[in-house]
Every structure is written in C-alpha cells, then in structure tokens.
C-alpha cells in the first residue's frame, strides 16, 4: 500500500468477517481487510476460496454471519434491505458471464443504471455514448449483445459498470472467458478507471494477468486470508 491507511481514506474495511451458507460450509472465516480509496487490488485464490462470496458481501447480495463491513465509511453489515439499491448505485459490478440483457441493444444495456437512478433522457444519451466511446464500441450502439464477440460484450459490461462514475468497481473473473489479447484490453480499461480515482477490486485466479499488471494481491484459501502483499 502506497499510503498510510486511516479511517478517513479507507474505501473498504472488513473486520473479522465470517460467512457460512450452512452450518458446516464456511465460505469466509475471520476475514479482515482494509482497502484505501483509489486502490487497485486482486483477490486471488483457488476455486472455492471465497472470492465471489467476498464480492457478494460487498455489493449486499449476502449478509455476513459475523463481523463488520464498512464501505466509504458506511456500515453495511446491518443495512436495511431498502437501502441496498442505494449502496449499489455507488458501485460498478462486472461479471465473468457479462450479464447483459440479450433482448436489449448495447445502448439500452448501458443506459440501464442511469435509468434506474432516474436521470434525464438527454443526460442518459450523452453519458451512454461517452461510456461506449470510451470502451471503443461507439459504432455498435444498436447491436444486440449476441451479435458481438465475447471481448466486446465484456467491454459493454464495463461501460455499464462505469457509466455512473462509481466509487468502487467490483469485478468477478472479468477475463475468465476471454483470450489473452482481449483480456489485456479489458485490463487497460480497469487501469484507466483506477487512474480516474475509482477503487478497483478484481477477483481472478489468472496468475499471468497478475504478473503482467502488478498490483496489490490479496490471496484467499478456504475462506481465510493467507497473503496480502504489494509489488
């Protein structure tokens, strides 16, 4: 970490977080982590290590069995369910399987988070165009996701995640389905978002990617933090 982490400049704080789906199936055990604002970190570990569970806890899809989670100074552990959508509006989320709506054009897919926030139509058009231009898809506004390659679909998903200028970008194996060259393009987009001040958490088990784009690495195994180092 390049800066000294104090409460004020921390974007994400997890304290002794435990998460179990069933009595004897523990996904996270006594997990503590601090992520400063503007940080870029990899969450890595084998399948079943708890990376996806950690991301789910961060975007409020699950609640921890024990422990505290603070996002931008707000304790989300006991957050009422009606407030979860407002937390998610400050996040951008990218998935391995893109999660684009196949019956909607790229423009409509990227416009979704802005429409949810009740933004005005001209503002939506403007921002969506800029976001798609940023990922190099401005010429394919009216294409449907299945008319695009995997890399283009993931770029569209990233445009959707970034169109609201989120504080935090969460990505779950975003390059898992893509070949190396395309994965590098995607990583450049994450780097760019991070350079503009967005805190990025990227779950991956792609060692080659971590070597090529060295950043802070948090390793998990069987739900425990086993390593946390910066290059």
């Amino acid at each position, binding site marked *: 970490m390049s800066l000294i982490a104090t409460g004020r400049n921390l974007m994400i704080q997890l304290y002794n977080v435990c998460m179990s789906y069933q009595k004897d199936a523990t996904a996270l055990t006594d997990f503590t982590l601090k992520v400063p604002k503007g940080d870029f970190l990899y969450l890595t570990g084998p399948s079943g290590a708890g990376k996806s569970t950690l991301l789910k806890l961060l975007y409020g899809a699950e609640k921890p069995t024990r422990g505290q989670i603070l996002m931008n100074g707000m304790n989300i552990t006991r957050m009422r369910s009606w407030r979860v959508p*407002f*937390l*998610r509006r400050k996040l951008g989320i990218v998935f391995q399987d893109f*999660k684009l*709506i196949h019956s909607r054009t790229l423009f409509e897919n990227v416009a979704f*988070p802005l429409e*949810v926030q009740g933004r005005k139509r001209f503002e939506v058009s403007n921002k969506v165009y800029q976001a798609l231009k940023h990922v190099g898809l401005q010429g394919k506004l009216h294409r449907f996701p299945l008319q695009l390659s995997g890399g283009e679909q993931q770029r569209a998903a990233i445009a959707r995640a970034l169109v609201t200028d989120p504080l935090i970008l969460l990505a779950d194996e975003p390059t898992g389905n893509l070949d190396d060259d395309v994965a590098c393009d995607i990583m450049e987009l994450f780097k760019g978002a991070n350079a503009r001040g967005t805190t990025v958490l990227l779950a991956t088990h792609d060692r080659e990617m971590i070597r090529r784009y060295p950043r802070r690495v948090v390793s998990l195994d069987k739900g425990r933090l086993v390593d946390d180092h910066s290059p």
Partner: protein
Amino acid sequence: MLQSIGYFVRRVGRNLRQTPVICSAAIGTVAVALMIMAFFIIVVVNVQQVARQWSREIQVVAYFDKVPGEDKVDRWRDNLEGMKEVERVDFVSREEAFRRFKKRLGDDGDLLDGVGSDFLPASLEVVLHEASRNKTGVETVVRRLQQIPGLEDVSYEPDWLERFDAFVNLLKLAGFVFGGFLLFAALFIVSNTIKLTLYARREEIEIMSLVGGTPLFIKMPFLLEGALQGIVGGVFALIGVWAIFALVLQEGLYGVLMVTGADSILFLSAWQQGGILVCGLLLGLTGSLLSLRKFVRI
C-alpha cells in the same frame, strides 16, 4: 415523476412487443377465466330474477271480523306504512273482494248468482319491500297486525316462506362458494401465466437489482403490464360473453327458465360489466404481485 411514468410506459410497451406470445397467453387466460365468471353471473342474475318474481307473491292479508270505519282503516294503514318492511297497504272492501272472486271464477262466475256481495270479509293487504320478503319480515308485520283489534285471521303461509328462504339462502351460498372458487382458480392460473413472463425476464430483473433498482422500480413495469393484460383480458371476456350470449345462451336459458315464470333473460348490467373489468385489473395486478414476490429479491 412524469419522467418515471413515461419511462414505465415505454418499458411496458417494449416488453409487450418483445414477448407477444407469452403476453397473449396471459391475456387469453384472464379472458377465459373472466368469461366463465361472467357466464356464472348471468345464470345467477337470471335465477335471482325468477326468485324476485316469486317473491312478489309474498304478502300478508289480515281479514276483519266486522267492516271497520274509514278513519280506523286510515289510521291502521298509516301505522303499517310507517314500518320499514312495508311497501304498500291496500284496503279491500267486501264488495271489492266479491268482485275479485267473481273475476277469478271467470266463466263459472254465475255460481255466485244469488249470493250476497257481502259474504266475503273485508281485508288489509300488506305488500312488503323486496328486501323484507322473507320469513323475518313477514313475521314482524304479522306481530304488528295482531295488535289491531277486530281482526279475524292473518294469512301468510309460513311453510312456503320457509322453503323460499331456504332456496334464496342456497342460491347465495352457491354463489359465494362457486364464485370464490372460480376467482381463486382464475388467480392461480393467471399468476402462473404471469410467472412465465417473469421467468423469461429473470435475467433482466436480476440485472436491474444489481445496478441499484429499488424493488418498486423493478416491479412497477411488471405490475402495469399485469394490470394492462388484466383489463384487455376483461374487454375480450365481455366481447366473447356477449357474442355467446346473443348467439346461444339467451335462447338456451330462456328455454330452461321460461317454465319458472321468467319474463326475459337478462345480460350483465353496466355495473356488472364494469365489475368484470375491475376483476380483470385486480387479477392481473394480484397475479403479477404474487409472482414478483418470488422473483424480486434484493
């Protein structure tokens, strides 16, 4: 606010265009369910009409020992007409009773030749309001009549009244049970059909939730869609039921109910037609709401 409404309307329009087959299935299901209900209502309305005609026969007649003076009759009439059960009180003089009897005998009227026109007693005929044409209403009036001095007899046929009451109660019970069952079955089918439309869009619902859509924002287009499908289903049901009524049902029901004294066969009143549309709207809304509970989880 207006912007949100505009957004929801656009989304409903787009959803309907994108899944026309499933939407048509939902509309068809609502239409069929409401048509069955409408047929049932037509049958009940017409049987009730027959019952109402029968109930016109329900009246109480009080016979006088001696013919009372005009002022007394007026006093009793005012007294009885002040009761909430009573619609009208007619005084039938001895002569009037004789004239009616003779008319009823028709061609055999000459049997009464040589009989004095004052051999029948004078009477008060009490006609009850429709709502009081039952055993309780009749007994209340009879109790009041029995307080009048000089009455020889009060006629009101208690056995027939009991049977009529039992018939009306059975009709109401059957209406509630069968109608309730039909509504429940319709709701179940409609809710499952709408579940199909939601299942086709579960991905969209999940993504809306992930990008920060509130439950109300996610549900609103589906609720509006359900309501619209319900109303359109209701309109189709009314058109269908009217066509079948005009072509087949009117004659068929008349054939069955004519023997019981029905004058004509009634279609649904404007209120009942409005009720069918409201029922469609509620079916669509409730069906969507029940299905959405399962699909929209934050």
